[in-house]
Structures are given as C-alpha cells and as structure tokens.
C-alpha cells in the first residue's frame, strides 16, 4: 500500500511538473506566435504605406511640373484621386485648427443641421488652457442642450441677453467670460509657482475674490491684500484693499503705490515687482 501510495505521489508530482513546464512553454510559444503575427500585420502596413508614399510623391512631382489635376473618368476612382481628396481634407482640418487657435471657438454642425456644437478654447498669454463645449439645438429656437461650461459662469444670463438676437455677440461674450476665468485661475497658479512666499488664503470658484497674505520685508508684519474682480470678462481687479495690524504700514504712501500697482497689472506680475522692490518678502 505504502509503495503504491509513494509511487502514486511521485508520479503525480512528475505529472504536475511536466504539466507546469509545458504550460510555461505553451505560454512562451503563444507569446512568440502573437509577436510573429503582429510583425506580419505591421510589415503589410509598412509595405502599403511605402507604396502609397511613392505614389503620392510621384503625384506631387507631376503637379509640381505643372500637369493639371484631372478627375479620372472611370467609374472606379483611382487611388490618386483619393490622395487629392485627402489633401483637401487635410487643408480644411488645418484651417479648422487655425480658427480654433486664433478665433477662440470652432463651430461644428451635426445631426444634419439640427444642432451645432461650439468648442471654446481658452488661453492666457502664450499658454492654451482648458477647452469647453456647448451644444445647441437649432430646430425651433436656438436652445442650449448640453455643455460643460463651469456652473459659476452666468450662462443663463448671457443666453437671455443675446442668444436669440445676436449669436455672434453671445459667442464673443461667452468666450470673453471663459477666457477671463481661465486667466484668473492661471494667475493664481502662477502666484504659487513664482511667488511662493505669498499665500493664497481665500479664493472663490469664479476666482474673482482673492485674499492673499504676504509679509512686509522690514517689519515682517503680515499684510492681507483683498482683490475683487467685478468685471467678469477681465483679468484685472476692480478693487484692492490692503489690511494689516500695523495700520501705519497699510496706510503708508508706499503701500498706496503698491495698491495701485495691484490694480494695474496682473496679480502675479504685481507681486513679483513688489518683491523685487523690497516691499514684501
């Protein structure tokens, strides 16, 4: 009994071992097969692209030599015509991207003219920031059906003012609002990035109410600067208040000047200037 059992266990282990290695081998083989089939697909793709590129180049040469463009009369269109159509498509797509970059929004019609999608891009200085989309139903009156505009933007108010009467004005004002919001947000992240010594204590969603804490360089007194932006289409504040326990400092001519500076230039630049001038740490 014992021997049989021993043999049995031994055999069983052998079987298991064998199964284990073949399993591994099989996995390896599968992986290799997979790689080989990928190579076959890629080679075919490369050969097709290579042939296409050659044809495309000869077409370009033909055109460069001044031979006219002709539509092939045969029912079955030649590959060259497809290239020409692709060229036109590329040209139009480039134009669309360009409009997005310079105009701030793109208009794309869908569902056979039943609705239109507007994509707004936002920028501050040389940086492009978030993109927002708005879909409008055009069937009866123009109506906003879907959008991802931040809830703090007064979209309903803007729509009431202009959407039905002046579509262009609606797009322009909305774009201004979105850009100003993105700009104010960007200014706040620039403060954190460039003037780390200044602390952003409070800000709201619209980024149009901002409380900053900085330290005066000489007395090391804490100074609170409150910036309010009542014009939501702008990145410059409309009201700046300076507060400090050291009241003489807050009311000093120097800080009156600083206050004016904060009104006139973007907040991160104003703070950098204040630090350079030695007003704040």
């Amino acid at each position, binding site marked *: 009994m014992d021997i049989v059992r021993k043999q049995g266990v031994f055999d069983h282990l052998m079987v298991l071992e064998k199964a284990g290695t073949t399993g591994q081998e099989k996995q390896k083989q599968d992986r*290799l097969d997979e790689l080989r089939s990928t190579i076959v697909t890629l080679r075919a793709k490369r050969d097709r*692209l290579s042939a296409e590129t050659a044809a495309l180049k000869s077409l*370009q040469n033909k055109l460069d030599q001044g031979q006219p*463009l002709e539509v092939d009369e045969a029912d079955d269109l030649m590959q060259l015509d497809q290239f020409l*159509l692709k060229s036109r*498509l590329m040209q139009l797509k480039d134009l669309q991207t*360009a409009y997005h*970059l310079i105009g701030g929004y793109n*208009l794309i019609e869908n569902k056979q003219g039943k609705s239109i999608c507007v994509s707004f891009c936002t920028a501050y200085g040389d940086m*492009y920031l978030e993109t927002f989309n708005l879909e409008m139903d055009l069937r009866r009156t123009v109506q906003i059906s879907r959008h991802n505009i931040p809830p703090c933007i007064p979209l309903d108010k803007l729509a009431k003012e202009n959407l039905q009467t002046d579509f262009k004005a609606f797009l322009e004002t909305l774009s201004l609002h979105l850009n100003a919001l993105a700009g104010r947000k960007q200014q706040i992240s620039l403060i954190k990035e460039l003037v780390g010594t200044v602390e952003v204590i409070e800000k709201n969603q619209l980024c149009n109410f901002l409380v900053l804490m900085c330290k005066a360089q000489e007395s090391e007194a804490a100074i609170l600067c409150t910036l309010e932006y009542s014009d939501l289409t702008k990145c410059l504040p409309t009201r700046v208040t300076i507060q400090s326990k050291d009241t003489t400092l807050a009311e000093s001519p120097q800080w009156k000047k600083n206050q004016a500076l904060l009104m006139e230039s973007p907040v991160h630049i104003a703070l950098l200037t204040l630090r350079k001038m030695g007003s704040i740490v």
Partner: protein
Amino acid sequence: MGTLEQKLEEEIKLLQREIKAYEAEQEACVRAISLQNGEALQGLVRNLSNKVEKGNVMLKKDVSKLITEISNLEKDLRRQTEISGISLSECFVKTVTKTERKNVQQYRLTGHCCFLSFQAEFALTEIQDGETFLKKISDLNIIVDGAELKDLCAFLSRVEETKGLFLFFRTLGSFSERCKQRNRTFQYFKSTWGHRCRLRAGSSRLAVSFNHRWLSFSRPLLCSCRGYSV
C-alpha cells in the same frame, strides 16, 4: 528563447518607427500638394460631388465618405468665417518635431479681417508629460496692413511680447468693425454736410467744420484700438 522574443520585439519597434516615418512623410506630402493646388483641389471636389448628385458616378464607400466629410467641413468653415469676420486665405502648417511626448508645428496664416489684411507666424508646441498637457505659442510674428495706424503698431508689439494671439484677433475684429462704422459715419456726414468734412491722417480722423454767424468750430471724431487689456 528570451533572445528570440527580444529579437521579435525589436523588429516590431523598428517596423513601428518605419510606419511613423512614412505617415509623417505622407502628411508633409499631402500638405504640400494642398498648399500648391488649393483652388484646383476645390474644383476637383466640386466636380466630384456634382457628378455624385447627378448620379453619374458610383463612388467607393471610403471616397464618398471623404467627400461628405469635406463638404461638411467646408460648410462649417464658411459659417466660422461669417461669424468671426476673420477670413483665412492661406494656412501653412509644417510639423517640426513629432515624438510621443512632444509635438511642434510651425504655422503661417494669411488672411483678412474686413479691410485689414494680416499675416501671422508662430510655433505651436504641445507636450504630453504623464497627466499634464501643455500647449503653448512661441515665436509669434504678426504683420498687418495698415501700419500707418500708430495705435495698431503699439498694440502689435505688445501682443508679440505677451504672445496673446487671441487678444490680437479679437481686437483686430473690433478694430475693423469700428473702422467700418467710422466709414459709415463719414459717408453720412459727407452726404449731409458735403464739402465741410474731410478725412485726416490715414482716414483715422474725421473733421467736420461748422460755420455759423456766431459759432465756428472744427470737431475731430476719433476712434482707436486702445482700451483693451490682457
């Protein structure tokens, strides 16, 4: 076995690189063709879609899909031009660098906004670094017809400095809009007051002189592109 696997993987990588290179070459080629033959291409598309409408030609599925896509885009762009007031006549794009992480493209745009024609050149850099995505403008250079308008010149140099492409085009739009209004005003004055009004300095100043027994004054009407801030 490991080495065989590595070999195969390397071949795959090589093939992928080759494919990318061909794709980039095709893209450049297609762009060059469209830039050289813009109008002829438009004709070709029109011709084809006319034939399709008349039912003369049966097109392959992917060709007719291309034509639909083209005519939809054309329609969208016409609307875009109409609404923004900016009309682009040439758009030159060249891919300078293209890797998985970084994409740099050189743009040259020519067009006009009302009566002001412009040319803008810039580089667009897109960097994908993990979660963060950066998209920025550099090397901005703008030329506008109408350099005699001093305000516009000062504004241009500020735009080039801050690289505010958006700001530039928005201002150009409202500037030319105001020029149009000013011209209308001038025409109105001209029809009402005739010889008494004249245009000064590159049509940016309109002066009307009134003569009365007790009263005589000349009132300049001004319009400028100031008052925009970043």
